[in-house]
């Protein structure tokens, strides 16, 4: 089996996005939603780097991936802090319990 590097990286991108998207759709746990977002963003970062590499402008892809890493980390921090607060106030991490947004 002779697969080129772009094909392998694209397979990783498609796999990561698919797995993360599925988890995002089926999970009801707030912390697991953050896990799913992290998985999707890793796929997006690989796609950015691959696009830069294939265009011969890897530095551009890297600088964009750096921005994505920072934004992704902030999203994770905020998501986890929200989950902790929801657990403290409602006593549950279940997304169904948040549907009414009542305390």
């Amino acid at each position, binding site marked *: 089996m002779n697969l080129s590097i772009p094909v392998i*990286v694209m397979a990783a991108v498609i796999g990561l996005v698919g797995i993360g998207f599925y988890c995002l759709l089926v999970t009801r746990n707030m912390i697991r939603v953050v896990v799913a977002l992290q998985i999707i963003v890793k796929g997006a*970062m690989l796609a950015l780097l691959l696009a830069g590499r294939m265009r011969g402008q890897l530095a551009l892809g890297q600088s964009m991936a750096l921005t994505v890493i920072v934004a992704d980390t902030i999203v994770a921090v905020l998501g986890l802090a929200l989950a902790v607060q929801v657990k403290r106030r409602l006593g549950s991490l279940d997304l169904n319990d948040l549907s009414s947004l009542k305390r």
Partner: protein
Amino acid sequence: MWHIIILIGILVCAFQAIRSERLLVAALWLAGTSALVAIMMYLLGAYQIAVIELSVGAGLVTVLFVFAINIAGEEPIPALSLIPKPLAWVSVIVAVGLLAWQILPLFDLPLGSLQGAGFEEMLWSGRKVDLYLQTALIFAGVLSMVALLSEEQTHKVSTHKEDNV
């Protein structure tokens, strides 16, 4: 050969991260995914971003997850999903199909020879707006987290004052 092994490792770790029952174990599988993605980035030639992903993705974010899970605790949530699982599968297949349809034409392209500015020059000279955005994001994130985590304490203090009155 190494690329294929790493690809399989990435997919297995990501799958285990969403499949494992315990949140702590899921966070560790996610760290494994980050580490393997960092190796894939290194093999692509993105050395600086690979190091940053390894330290931030596999290190900092994992510590944050463990911290949050320790505070919030493990909670068994019924396996019932938000939407029916067959519908979720159909949605995933459609989304992945669209993604593959968009990037399939790139399959024949070879890896281009590297040209243009280096990473440092591109980041500090060509992408200044990105740097401003990152700085703003970091400050916003830190301030938001402090506000979110200290709200409980403020709430307790105000409740205590009301009790005294």
